């Protein structure tokens, strides 16, 4: 820490006096604290309170205790929504731990600096395209008989597999996860590549002097030194994909039936289509609790596996 900063912290004097002396420091904090407390923390605290009310956001506002939570336990949509969230995030986590890692390892092995640079930028560009554009593009590719994916199946003689991918409840969720195939061009790729570029050149030289095969080099050098990035991707993708909203909203709106509903979609639907703000808040509270438990469990798991190494 800046020891020069201690100028504003006299050793003597009461708390109030010290606070008064540092008033400029608090003034500088004011914009951030005002913004965060008005728009984030106050709503966060009221989320718990609101979940105890039967509330339509306008005139009806009646305290009902834990009735929302009781209803939630019996809500078939909740069960399906959380199941879907588990499935989607499990798939996303597995995908993000493999496909982009493979791509980053490969790009890192390309020796020509020019080709490597082109590939690097090329794999990053899709990240800049809005998520919604990617989703709408895939919705268009899935659509109908003449959609690109069904046409591709036609072209390679697999007409029998042609399918209304988003319209069939047995394939809709899978089709949503499949968006972005082969899933290499994304944030995880960027993180893995940045990690690889931070590894000291010396380590690779030692590895090659000892005659390590490329596979051995990957297992012994690259993967262990990427463990920080892998951890970050793991937790980041879990939290992000568990809240998946845009793709089911734009591609299936939770259907057919309720086969692709997710907790986020259910919250949105209950609040903004049915005006059930209290009930929607209670789903939010449950979502928070589940994510908190998952994150803590995952971090514990990672820490334990570190000890084994």
């Amino acid at each position, binding site marked *: 820490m800046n020891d020069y900063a201690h100028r504003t912290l006299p050793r003597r004097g009461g708390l109030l006096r010290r606070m008064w002396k540092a008033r400029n420091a608090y003034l500088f904090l004011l914009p951030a604290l005002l913004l965060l407390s008005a728009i*984030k923390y106050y709503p966060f605290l009221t989320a718990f309170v609101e979940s105890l009310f039967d509330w339509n956001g306008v005139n009806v506002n009646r305290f009902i205790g834990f009735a929302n939570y009781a209803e939630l336990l019996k809500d078939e949509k909740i069960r399906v929504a959380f199941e879907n969230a588990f499935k989607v995030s499990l798939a996303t986590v597995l995908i993000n731990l493999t496909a982009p890692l493979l791509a980053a390892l490969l790009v890192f092995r390309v020796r020509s600096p020019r080709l490597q640079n082109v590939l690097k930028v090329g794999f990053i560009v899709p990240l800049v395209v809005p998520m919604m554009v990617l989703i709408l*593009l895939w919705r268009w590719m899935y659509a109908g008989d003449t959609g690109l994916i069904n046409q591709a199946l036609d072209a390679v003689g697999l007409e029998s597999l042609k399918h209304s991918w988003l319209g069939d409840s047995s394939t809709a969720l899978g089709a949503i996860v499949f968006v972005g195939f082969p899933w290499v061009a994304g944030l995880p790729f960027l993180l893995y590549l940045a990690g690889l570029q931070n590894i000291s050149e010396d380590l690779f030289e030692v590895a090659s002097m000892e005659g390590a095969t*490329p596979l051995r080099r990957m297992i012994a050098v690259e993967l262990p030194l990427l463990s920080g990035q892998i951890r970050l991707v793991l937790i980041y993708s879990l939290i992000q994909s568990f809240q998946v*909203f845009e793709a089911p909203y734009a591609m299936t709106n939770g259907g057919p039936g309720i086969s692709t509903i997710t907790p986020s979609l259910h919250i949105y639907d209950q609040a903004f289509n049915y005006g059930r703000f209290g009930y929607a808040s209670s789903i*939010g509270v449950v979502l928070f609790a589940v994510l908190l438990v998952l994150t803590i469990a995952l971090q514990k798991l990672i820490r334990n596996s570190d000890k084994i190494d």
Partner: protein
Amino acid sequence: MKKSNPWTVVFVLALFAVAMYPFFVLLASSFKHQMQIYESPWFFSSPLYPSNYGVAFRQISQPIVHSLAVTAIGVAATLIASATAAFSFARYSFPFKNALYGVIIMLLMIPGFVILVPQFISVKNMGMYNTLLGQALPPAASYTAMGVMLMRAFFEGLSRSLYEAAEMEGARDFSVFARIVLPLSKPIVATVAIMSGLQIWNNFVWSLVVTTGDKVKPVILAIMTVQGGINEGDGVKLAGYVIASLPLLILFFAATKPFVSGLTQGAVKG
């Protein structure tokens, strides 16, 4: 050691081609009329219809203006709130410093959907429903936590003698901040600006709930309803998707370096 394994190159190029192909089809089909999309879906086909872009642009030009305004307001708010708070933490010691820092950083642990509903109520009660400000401030608040963290680290890395020299000259706290610290911090300012700008431009859910009708509709919502006539068909829709992506793509190629660092830093936010 200097030559790549040819199989590596072949494989990585194949992967690249598969990953890029949907974007290529998007671009190619955005120049087509509906019949061409049916008949030759895989590649560009003549004649090209750049007029699709005109039709799409007329439908989303107003939303693009809204999105530009929302993004500008949001980035400005993020930068002001982050830089001032980060300066305070980097330069002063004061009671409750760590607690206050903790309060700001804790925001990173609150998932967006958990507070979607109460945040909507708060913003509505503040009279910001269906306004540019109402769309811009909540995402700006979200990225402020990350912004404070990144900028504090950067400010603490600035040379201490700078502050001392300024102090000798009798510079006031605010002018130290505005005249010395900020001009030396362009890289981190760019990183935070891009990180927040990218997310605010692409923010879908919040704009979906806090706007209605066309008054302040952002482009990310508008592209869902872009439509072409019978002949033009889907080509117009796809042209709209391309247009909505262009501003960020142009910015990316103009400033690749701060962009990449903005993207990487933003990832840490869960």
